[in-house]
């Protein structure tokens, strides 16, 4: 139960946790996991010009999961939304020295972010189909 310093730091003061700050742009959210799995992760993001203007998380999970959410959220501020489609948590996990046994739970972070992307992507489709159907 000795955690890497970075994990402890994120656990003590997670970044971008909780409510999405007010601002311009559309809001999308995604969620993955279940209590019975020991991990539930949700993200919210505000998108302007196809890029992530702000991204926040909520999580129920082990300290590695919480830290990974925090670090991932940090890294994704300002990134293009499209990036979330194939986002993988590997680099974050390496940075936090997450042990092999704990990496499975972190996949839910990928799932939740992909689900954010899907919501955004769906909105793009419907907008373009809307624009098509409503010329």
């Amino acid at each position, binding site marked *: 139960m000795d955690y890497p310093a970075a994990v402890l730091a994120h656990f003590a003061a997670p970044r971008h946790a909780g409510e999405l700050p007010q601002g311009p742009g559309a809001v999308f959210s995604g969620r993955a996991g279940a209590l019975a799995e020991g991990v539930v992760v949700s993200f919210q993001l505000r998108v302007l010009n196809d890029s992530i203007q702000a991204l926040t998380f909520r999580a129920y999970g*082990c300290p590695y999961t919480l830290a990974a959410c925090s670090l991932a959220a940090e890294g994704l501020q300002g990134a293009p939304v499209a990036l979330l489609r194939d986002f993988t948590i590997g680099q974050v996990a390496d940075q936090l020295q997450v042990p092999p046994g704990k990496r499975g739970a972190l996949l839910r972070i990928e799932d939740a972010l992909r689900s954010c992307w899907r919501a955004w992507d769906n909105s793009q489709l419907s907008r373009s189909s809307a624009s098509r159907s409503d010329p």
Partner: protein
Amino acid sequence: MSEPVYLDYAASTPVDPQVADAMDACLRDPDAMANAAATHWAGRAAAARAQPAREQVAQLIGARAGEIVWTSGATEADNLALVGAARFQQQRGRHIITALTEHPAILESCRSLQAEGFQVSYLSPNGAGLVEPESVAAALREDTVLVSLAHVNNELGVIHDIAAVGAICRTHGALLHVDAAQSAGRESIDVKAQQIDLLSLSAHKMYGPKGIGALFLDAERCRRVSPLLHGGGQERGLRPGTLPVHQVVGMGMAAELARARLASDPPAILALRRRLEAGLLALPDVQLNGSPEQRSCHIVNVRVGGVEGESLRLGLRRFALSSGSACAAESGEPSPVLRSLGIADHLALSSLRISLGRGSTAAEVDALVAAVDATSQRLRALAPA
């Protein structure tokens, strides 16, 4: 991490200074250095040094000195009781009864007996974590030779009605083994009145040294068991190896102190436990695991809803407490004991076993309650709705 707080007295207790003094004197005493089985002056001197300890341990449980066999701890005592008695009795029958809530030393001994062809009934506890005497009675078969039940359960702290189980076993003719590692020095034990045939003790759970324990074997009902270790014939042939005089002296002293303090220690600890329970159960979504009444003075087990267990424990890490039996490194698996009570896995994982002892204070208890409150609030605020 500001001042660490030890709240894991059920896992192990500090050595009482008087016990340490007695052991230290023994370690340095030329008269305690010899092999106590040797017949020369030095051997007899060592044997004489060790002898009162057998008496002291016997008195704590209402036994006679000749009914005590020294072991390396309660784990070995449990193994010797179960495997030794089962093998020795197997002409009479090969069925054993125990509970799903027992310590791994019991459960794993039973599994090894199953591999030898014994049959084992693992009784489920009721919702309060207790195995009812009636369910023991119902499980008894003609070929049942042994029943094993902890006096105080090490995870929940609940107290079994051993006298009632003892009477049932005596009527049937099965032997009763009781793991008293948690109850010795906390609950009064009288092996004769409670009709216990075998009983396991561990010194380090009662302010004595680690690495020494004892098995009581009733002189009339259970003079012999099949030994697990083979060698020089010490301990009436039941447990070979050079007698560790200083360890035995330490356990004897711990037993004597425990007996002397039986009227004062447990009530003081109980008062703290009530304060702790009141504090914890007043917090949102905190529930007691196991019976609220039939419970030892020193153990509280609660489940904290809405927070993940490992994060909860990290938030509480200045407190040494356990999420289950602290026997082996935390596995990340939910406690089988809590599972057997029907508690959901995620709640079993966010349960805390807090155990108090002679060194515990109201300030420590209050600090824990405040920390559980703060951590669980913080973690719940982080969690998705």
